[in-house]
């Protein structure tokens, strides 16, 4: 599992590392997310929070993630994000691609949403 993840991480290494690096943690992306607005402006719905705590964590651990970690990530990248691709970043970071990569990695490890259950 780890090897497979590391392979795909390597493929997107340059873009993801750069995006994670330049993010100034300014939180200006918050209001562009309708999920954030809809959930009483709860900061856990901020686009930056979502990518830092999904793909950011995976890169920090260099792909050495266990199933439990991915399971914990699942609500962040599926329930809290619908991938509408409308996130605004003042610096121009491509946030949707980061969430989507996190989802791809989860899917490869067999962690994905079941739409007939409430998770």
């Amino acid at each position, binding site marked *: 599992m780890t090897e497979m993840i590391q392979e795909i991480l390597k493929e997107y290494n340059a873009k993801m590392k750069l995006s994670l690096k330049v993010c100034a943690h300014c939180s200006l992306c918050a209001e562009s997310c309708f999920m954030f607005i809809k959930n009483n402006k709860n900061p856990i719905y901020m686009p930056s929070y979502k990518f830092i705590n999904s793909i950011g964590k995976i890169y920090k651990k260099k792909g050495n993630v266990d199933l439990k970690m991915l399971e914990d990530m699942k609500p962040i990248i599926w329930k809290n994000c619908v991938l509408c691709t409308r996130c605004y970043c003042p610096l121009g970071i491509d946030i*949707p691609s980061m969430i989507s990569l996190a989802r791809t990695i989860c899917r490869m490890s067999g962690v*994905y949403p079941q*739409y007939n259950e409430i998770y």
Partner: protein
Amino acid sequence: MVKSKQKPLAEIKDLLKSYSSILNVGCGGCASVCLAGGQREVIALNNELSLLFKQEGLDKKIDGYTVERQCNVDFFQGLSDERIKKYDCIISMACGAGVQFLAEAFKSKPVFPALNTVSIGIDKDIGLYEERCRACGECVLAYTGGICPVTRCAKGLFNGPCGGTNRGKCEIGNEYPCAWYEIYERLKEQNRLQDIKKIQPAMLWKNQVLRVTIQEPYQERYKMY
């Protein structure tokens, strides 16, 4: 969202009979939400097909992979040309748009649909969906009290009701409600019956040609005519 339904297994099996190495590509978008073509359904279909092939003594390899969305090339992560090269054909568990886009992206491989795209609909309950829109491109809901005559009227009439309306039911069968009766009732309730008298011009059936949507801020970019 777009609602779809899996094709009969026999039909899918028939499509694959001359290929030995198959990739089943799921879609994490609408097809996944309506429980027709997500990752779980990809695994389920693959299991069923492998069992079927085994029973018939056929030596076929079938793999599964689910992308986040098949209607946007940005989400084809992990579907590299190299990966595709290993397979003889692809089956797509997405709506018609996804199947076509996959076929467009990998022109050298045959791409088969595993789903029938049914409608743009609403979720009545888990696994139960109902059509609400046929994407005709000429929305008249403003005059019809929010009831769509194209999807709900058997004749798809823009001006109704017709002579076949029968005490709130449709002439095609007593179990079908008459859409135009419902429209009348709703407009009456909202006190705007004058709307039903407005004659809507006949549909130009523009959906006979490829409809392209360009949003206002991007008009300039794609200006070419």
